[in-house]
C-alpha cells in the first residue's frame, strides 16, 4: 500500500517535469512587452502601432545608449485583433499586451466611433484595464508613439505619469481608463470625454535620438483640451478653461491654480488645495433643475499687486473674486456644451436619476434634448486658508519706499 502510494507520488513528480513547457508558459525574454498602443485609420482598415520596450536597452547597466529604449511595430488589418496578430510578421516575439499603459486613438478614428476599438481591448484576457486612453489631436496616433522623451526613457511612461500629475496638480486633464470610458459610453445620463494629446514641435526630430540630446527637446508631447463624445463618436473639443470647468463639475479637481484680479488692479494666483463638488438634481413644477455646489479650499499662492493681506476684509474680497471667477468658468463651460455640443457630458442625467428616478424613467430617452435648456444653478464657496510663508508681499514695502 505504502509503496503504491509512493510510486504514485513519484509518477506525479516525473509527469510534472515532463509537462513543463505546455500551457501558456513563456519566459520573460520571449515577450515583446507592448507599453503603448496606437490606432489609426488606413483606408477602410485599422493601422495598429505598438510601442514595444527593448528591456536590454532600458535597464542596461553598462554600454547601452546606442539604441532607442523602445521600438515600434505596425500592422494593418480589418480588425484590431487581426492587425495585432499580423504584427508577428515584423516582430520577433508575440506582442504581450498586459503592460499597456497608454492607448492613443487617432481623432479620425474617434470621429467614426471608438466602440469597435474598445471591444477587443475589453475582451482580450491579456489586457488589463488600468491603462489611460487619449485622443491624438491634429496628428496620427502612430506619430504620438514615436516621440522620444527625457526623464522617463520609455515614452509611454512619460505619457502615463504626465497625465496623472497634470490631472492632480493642474486640473484641465482627465485620466480615462477603459472601464470608465465604456461605462460612460453605455450610460444614458452621461457622455464621455477623453483628454487630447498633441505634439508640440517638429515631428521629424522628435522621432530621432536628437530629441533627447538637447536640453529643450525640439518635440514634446503635450496634453491639451478634452474631446467631447456623443456616445462613442467624437464631436468636438473643450479648451483648457472649459476643461477645468468640466473637472470642477465632475468633482475631479484635486489641486489647481486660478488667477484672479486684485481689488486695486493687478493679479493674484490662488492655489486650490481641496475642492468638493455636489451636483443635485431638482424638480421645480415638473421641470428639472440642477444645483452645482462647489466648495473650494485655497491658499494664496502669489500676489502681484498691492493688497493688505493682514486684514480680514482683503481676504474676504479675495475669496469673493475667486468665487466669481470659478463660477464664471463653470457656467461658461456648461453654456458652451449646451449650445455647441448638445450632449450631457457632466452626468447631470445620472444626478437626476439618483434624486428622481421616476421622472428619469419618463425622460431618459429624450434627455439630451432636455439638457440643452436645462437651467443650472452654480454656487461656489471659497475659503482661503493660508497665505504662504510671508504675510504682505514685499512689493507692498517696495512701493512705500518710493
Amino acid at each position, binding site marked *: 500500500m505504502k509503496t503504491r502510494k509512493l510510486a504514485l507520488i513519484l509518477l506525479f513528480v516525473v509527469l510534472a517535469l515532463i509537462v*513543463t513547457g505546455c500551457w501558456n508558459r513563456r519566459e520573460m525574454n520571449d515577450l515583446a512587452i507592448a507599453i503603448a498602443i496606437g490606432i489609426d485609420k488606413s483606408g477602410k482598415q485599422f493601422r495598429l502601432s505598438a510601442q514595444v520596450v527593448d528591456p536590454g536597452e532600458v*535597464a542596461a547597466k553598462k554600454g547601452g545608449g546606442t539604441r532607442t529604449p523602445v521600438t515600434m511595430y505596425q500592422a494593418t488589418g480589418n480588425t484590431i485583433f487581426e492587425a495585432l496578430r499580423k504584427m508577428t510578421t515584423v516582430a520577433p516575439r508575440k506582442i504581450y499586451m498586459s503592460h499597456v*499603459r497608454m492607448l492613443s486613438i487617432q481623432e479620425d478614428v474617434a470621429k467614426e466611433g471608438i466602440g469597435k476599438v474598445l471591444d477587443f481591448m475589453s475582451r482580450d484576457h491579456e489586457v488589463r484595464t488600468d491603462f489611460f486612453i487619449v485622443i491624438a489631436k491634429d496628428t496620427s496616433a502612430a506619430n504620438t508613439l514615436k516621440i522620444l522623451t527625457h526623464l522617463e526613457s520609455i515614452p509611454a511612461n512619460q505619457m502615463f505619469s504626465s497625465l496623472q500629475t497634470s490631472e492632480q496638480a493642474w486640473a484641465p486633464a482627465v485620466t480615462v481608463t477603459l472601464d470608465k470610458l465604456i461605462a460612460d459610453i453605455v450610460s444614458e445620463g452621461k457622455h464621455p470625454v477623453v483628454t487630447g494629446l498633441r505634439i508640440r514641435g517638429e515631428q521629424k526630430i522628435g522621432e530621432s535620438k536628437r530629441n533627447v540630446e538637447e536640453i529643450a527637446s525640439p518635440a514634446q508631447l503635450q496634453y491639451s483640451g478634452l474631446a467631447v463624445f456623443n456616445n462613442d463618436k467624437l464631436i468636438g473639443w473643450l479648451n483648457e478653461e472649459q476643461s477645468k470647468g468640466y473637472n470642477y463639475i465632475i468633482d475631479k479637481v484635486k489641486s489647481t491654480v486660478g488667477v484672479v484680479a486684485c481689488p486695486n488692479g493687478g493679479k493674484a494666483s490662488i492655489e486650490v488645495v481641496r475642492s468638493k463638488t455636489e451636483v443635485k438634481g431638482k424638480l421645480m413644477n415638473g421641470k428639472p433643475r440642477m444645483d452645482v455646489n462647489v466648495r473650494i479650499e485655497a491658499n494664496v499662492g502669489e500676489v502681484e499687486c498691492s493688497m493688505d493681506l493682514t486684514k480680514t476684509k482683503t481676504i474676504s474680497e479675495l475669496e469673493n473674486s475667486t468665487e466669481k471667477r470659478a463660477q464664471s468658468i463653470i457656467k461658461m463651460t456648461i453654456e458652451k456644451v449646451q449650445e455647441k455640443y448638445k450632449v450631457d457630458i457632466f452626468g447631470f442625467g445620472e444626478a437626476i436619476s439618483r434624486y428622481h428616478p421616476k421622472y428619469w424613467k419618463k425622460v431618459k430617452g429624450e434627455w439630451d434634448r432636455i439638457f440643452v435648456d436645462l437651467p443650472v444653478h452654480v454656487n461656489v464657496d471659497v475659503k482661503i486658508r493660508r497665505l504662504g510663508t510671508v504675510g504682505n508681499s514685499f512689493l507692498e514695502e517696495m512701493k512705500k519706499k518710493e
Partner: protein
Amino acid sequence: MAQQIGTNLQENLRSLKEAVGNSNDIIFREFRTGDGDGINAAMLYTDGLVDKNSVQDFIMETLLIDVRNIDMTKKNIADILTVGDMQQLKDFDMLFTRLFSGAAILLLDGYEQGFSIGMSGIKDRGVTESSGEAVIRGPKEAFSESILTNTALIRRKIKDPNLWLETRQIGRVTKTDVSIMYINGIANDKIVEEVRKRIERIDIDGILESGYIEELIQDETYSPFPTVYNSERPDTIAAELLEGKIAIIVDGTPHVLIVPALFISFMQSPEDYSQRADISSLIRILRFLGIFIALLGPSLYIAITTFHQEMIPTQLLISLAAQREGIPFPAFIEALMMEITFEILREAGIRMPRAIGQAISIVGTLVIGQAAVEAGIVSASMVIIVSITAISSFVIPSMNMTISFRMVRFLLMGLAASFGLFGISVGIVALVLHLCSLRSFGVPYMSPLSPFILTDQRDTLFRLPHWAMYSRPRLISQKNVIRAKNQPPKPKPKNSERKGKAR
C-alpha cells in the same frame, strides 16, 4: 537461557576466556584471599573502561592485604569491600553487560554468584558548549556521549523525585542503554505506555545513535517531516519534560529524543524563553516569514515570471526581462541549477576538512555569485532569489525541519514550473493536508493550530510573558494542565506614595 555462574572458579574462568576469545583487553587477575590459605578469587575488568587506580586502591588492596585475617567463607563480601556500587551477578549475560559497561567483576571460588563493582572510568568528552543549537542568552552546556552524564545534566535542572528514569538494553549485539525519562504525574500515562511498547518492540542488532531509535519508533516513515524532536541541550529537554513530554536518552550520542513532537516545537528556540516576550514574539514571526520564503521563494519567482507576467509592476517586469535577455535556460532550469549548486556547497561545507573550507567558500561565492551572472548563464535576480531562500531556510532553529522544507521546496518548484500559481496552490493544499494528517504518538502534529486550541496559543505564534503561560499543552499533558498560578508582576507603589498613605 543464559549460562549460570557455577561454584567452580576455574571452570567459570575457562568458559569466560573462551567467550571473549582471549581478547587481551580483558584483564583476568587470579589471586588468593582470606585468612590462612584463603580461597581462590579472580578479578576481571576491561582495560580502558575501568578506573585502574580505584581498582587498585579499593579492591585489590582490601582483598590482598586488609582481609588476611578474615575467613572469607563466613563473611559477606559486601561487608568487606569499601565500594558503593556493587551488584550480584547470576548469569554470564549480565556479567558481560556489566563487564563492558566499565565494571570490575569479582569471582570467588565456591560462590554461586559473581560481584560487579562499579568502577567505571570511561573517558568522556565532557560537557562542552552546544555546537548545533547555539544561543546568545541561555545555558550553553550540551549533552555528551555518556548516558550518565546526560541524565545527570537533566537531574540537575529538575530536582524532583517524580522525574523517573527507565533504562533497558537494546540491540542484540551492542546492548546499548536506552532510557525513557519523564515526570510522573505530568506526562500522559498512555503516551508513556505507548513509548514503552514501541521501544520494547525494537529488535535490531545495534543502536549506535538516537536516529536508529527515532526511525524505529516514529509514526510516519514516508513523510518529509520529522515526528520525533531531538536536542542536544539539557535546558530544552527539561522544558519539554515540564510540558509533559517524554525524553528518550540513548547511550553514545548527545542527541536526546523527545516525543510527542509537534510541528510548532521545531519553530521554537530555547532562546525564545530567555529573551523578553515581545522580542521573542517578533523573532518567531520573523521565523515564520523565513519559512515562507524558504518554502516558496524560488517557486513563486518561477510561477510569476513564466506564467503571470501581468502581476509584476511594469517597471519591475522591464528590469527583470532585461536581466533575462540572453539567458539560455528556462527560469525553472536556471533555478534548479542554482539550488542544486547551493545544496552541494552546503553539503560540502559540512563534510570538508576545516582547513580547506575557505578555499571552497571563495570558489563557491565567485562561481555562483558573480561568474555565472557575468557569463550570462543565470540572471542576477535568480541569484538574489536563491541566496535569500538559502539564508531564510536557516532561521528555522531545528536542522531536520530545515531539510524537510528544502525538500518540499523542490517539489513546489516543479509544480510552479508546470502549472504556475495554480500548481503552487495545489501543492500547498496537499502540504497542509499532509501535515494535518500526521500524528506523533497519538497527538495531532499541527496542534494547537489544527485542532485549534485557544489556550495553547500563548506559546505558538507568539510567546506571551511567562506569567501568562500558566497551562501546559492540552493534548499532551491531560491530567495536570496547570503549571502555576502566577500573577502578572505588580510594581510596588513609589516611596513617596507609600509615605503619604501612612500619614
